[in-house]
């Protein structure tokens, strides 16, 4: 009895003694925590949020939104709905003159031509009861269900339609899901192409990086320092410069072609096409990402004891067996880290492939940039980006299952 009491007191003392240190440690990491929260967690959360939330329509036309929700998308629209639509649209202009066009832009994404139809409504001054007839007098389009169906699709604030769109599916007004038309379906193809390019770049980085990392890890300090600088050199030049350098090298009148023509290997009229195709994408991306493969492998190889291979040889293993069964398994944490790093970076790359890849350089990230910059459809961009993020997290999970994330070693 007595000893348990003592033990409790002791535990309390320990906790008290450690509390100060804990608080100190927490205060030290607090700035980083806040930074990570503000610059990483919050943006990603808002990204995922925006992919499934778009309130432009519901905010501007709340009543209409409700009525659209109740409408079955097939029967003729009710006078109430039309009235609510016209009055709320007109009223929204008083709040902010930009709102009606913003709403129109959103509807236009589902039904082309809606922008000008909305403009008709905005400029018509004599809209009164019966609204349905007045609208139909403006344009026969208002009689057709199409524009109303489009509005029904965009009316809810919380919507999975951007996520569906990101995988080439369309949400209909009835709430069904149908595949995107052939000429507009592109996302799955690009997801696939992006993964393939990333996988190939990872493979090439691994094939090229392994011997370099080996050399770095096992050469004399002086040589390896020198080599390390050469490996890191590309980091010191801007991405754009590196990419442009590849254009200068690979284009029709580029250095490589000029050289091949000069030594007579190819004919001047049959210069190799090495630019604006998959080849250029793979070459340039492999070059840009190679250091991310080499550094983790290098750091792991440095810790592998040289006498392990010697031991294997002395036990009768051929150099080939000794390498594959003894040396190579030791490099897997570094190789895995490098592959994960390169693959994830490659999935998000779009500047380099867009500049050198031509048609084939069109990757999923280009689509994200396109919707961010050109169509301003940030919700769709967010939805695609979220899917990409989920893909990368899946990969991370897989890596953790196969290699173990605790075994990952970065430079």
């Amino acid at each position: 009895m007595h000893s348990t009491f003592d033990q409790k007191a002791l535990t309390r003392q320990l906790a008290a003694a450690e509390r100060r240190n804990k608080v100190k440690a927490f205060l030290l990491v607090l700035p980083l925590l806040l930074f990570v929260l503000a610059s990483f967690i919050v943006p990603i959360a808002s990204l995922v949020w925006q992919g499934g939330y778009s309130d432009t329509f519901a905010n501007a036309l709340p009543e209409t939104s409700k009525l659209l929700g109740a409408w079955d998308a097939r029967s003729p629209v009710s006078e109430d709905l039309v009235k609510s639509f016209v009055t709320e649209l007109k009223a929204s202009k008083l709040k902010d003159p930009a709102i009606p066009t913003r709403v129109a832009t959103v509807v236009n994404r589902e039904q082309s031509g809606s922008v000008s139809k909305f403009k008709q409504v905005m400029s018509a001054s004599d809209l009164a009861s019966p609204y349905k007839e007045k609208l139909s007098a403006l344009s026969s389009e208002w009689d057709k269900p199409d524009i109303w169906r489009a509005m029904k699709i965009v009316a809810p604030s919380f919507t999975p339609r951007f996520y569906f769109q990101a995988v080439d599916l369309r949400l209909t007004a009835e709430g069904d899901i149908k595949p995107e038309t052939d000429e507009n379906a592109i996302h799955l193809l690009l997801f696939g192409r992006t993964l393939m390019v990333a996988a190939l770049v990872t493979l090439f980085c691994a094939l090229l990086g392994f011997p370099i990392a080996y050399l770095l890890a096992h050469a004399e300090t002086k040589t390896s320092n020198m080599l390390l600088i050469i490996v890191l050199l590309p980091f010191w030049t801007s991405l754009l410069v590196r990419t442009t350098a590849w254009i200068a090298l690979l284009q029709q009148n580029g250095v490589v072609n000029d050289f091949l023509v000069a030594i007579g290997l190819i004919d001047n009229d049959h210069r190799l096409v090495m630019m604006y195709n998959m080849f250029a994408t793979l070459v340039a991306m492999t070059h840009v990402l190679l250091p991310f493969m080499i550094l983790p492998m290098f750091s792991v190889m440095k810790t592998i004891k040289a006498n392990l291979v010697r031991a294997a040889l002395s036990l009768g293993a051929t150099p080939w067996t000794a390498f594959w069964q003894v040396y190579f398994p030791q490099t897997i944490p570094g190789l895995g880290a490098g592959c994960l790093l390169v693959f994830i970076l490659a999935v998000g790359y779009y500047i380099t492939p867009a500049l050198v890849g031509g048609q084939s350089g069109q990757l999923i990230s280009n689509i994200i940039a396109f919707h961010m910059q050109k169509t301003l459809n940030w919700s769709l961009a967010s939805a695609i980006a979220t899917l990409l993020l989920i893909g990368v997290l899946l990969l991370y999970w897989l890596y953790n299952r196969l290699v173990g994330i605790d075994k990952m070693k970065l430079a």
Partner: protein
Amino acid sequence: MTVSTSSGYVVFDKVEKTYDGRVLVVKSLDLTVARGEFLTMLGPSGSGKTTTLMMLAGFETATGGDIYLDGSKINHIPPHKRGLGMVFQNYALFPHMTIAENVAFPLRVRNINKADAEAKVRKALDMVQMSDLGGRKPAQLSGGQQQRIALARALVFEPKLLLMDEPLGALDKQLREHMQYEIKRLHETLGITVVYVTHDQSEALTMSDRIAVFNDGRIQQLATPDELYEKPQNSFVAQFIGENNQLRGIVKDISGGRARVEIGNSDVIEALAIQAESGKPTIVSVRPERVEIEPMSSDIAATGRIEEVIYLGDHIRIRMNVFGNSEFIVKVRNGSGRRGFAVGEEVKIGWSLQDCRALDV
């Protein structure tokens, strides 16, 4: 064990090695190891002993001379075809394989069928008393256990020659001594030839049939442990093996294998002329435990003034000034009837001529 140097199992014939093309780290090395012998290469670091072992294993190429194994030249045979077992410093177990997989590795690369291999692995693990740990990974074992596994792995394919490169260097003293006996026992039961590298002289003395003392790329002396201790051929060996008092002097003359050496200003003592030339400086070597205090009679007599007395349990260690050399050590066996010693006291000491060797400088 009888050692026949004529039937050399391993032969080094004028072997040389240089890494940079300027300095020889192994100089014209001749060495013969008999079948079944336990030969230790002993020396300070940089003396060339490890390089010599690595040339035998095939990891280094001799830049001059030839190496023979069982009568055939092996200079250009790659390491994996030499069929030697080897135990490395820090064990070199494969961290990604279990203990059993580690031990089975040499059998696997030799394509030995699974059943045979399993039996051999079990036998090898039994031999080092580690049969229970086959499923563990090396990192889960202690240093001593890892060492046994490394030994089992090097022996499981029954090599005719076992090379060991400072295998016990990372163990603590007690474990090291224990392992020394175990290695010795294995050597005796298996009858295998062992070439062993160490810088620890007591390890060398305990285990070896013969010891090659290396210094400066050369073998300084190749002899059995007792001969090495009793009859060092030069002052390096005398100094490196065991403790040693060194008295510097000039050889006055030599006759009948005896040198008269003048120590300090006027004192002249006799010593066996091992490496001494008349008129040249020499070092007279006497082991501390061979010096007697107040002897009844002795070949060489001297007087020492006690500077320091250290009690070590089984013996007493006395530092005294003899012939002006204040680093002269005398070891006295501890016994119930022994006399006491006081610092500053002058005592008569003496030793026999057989224990007193005039060596090179």
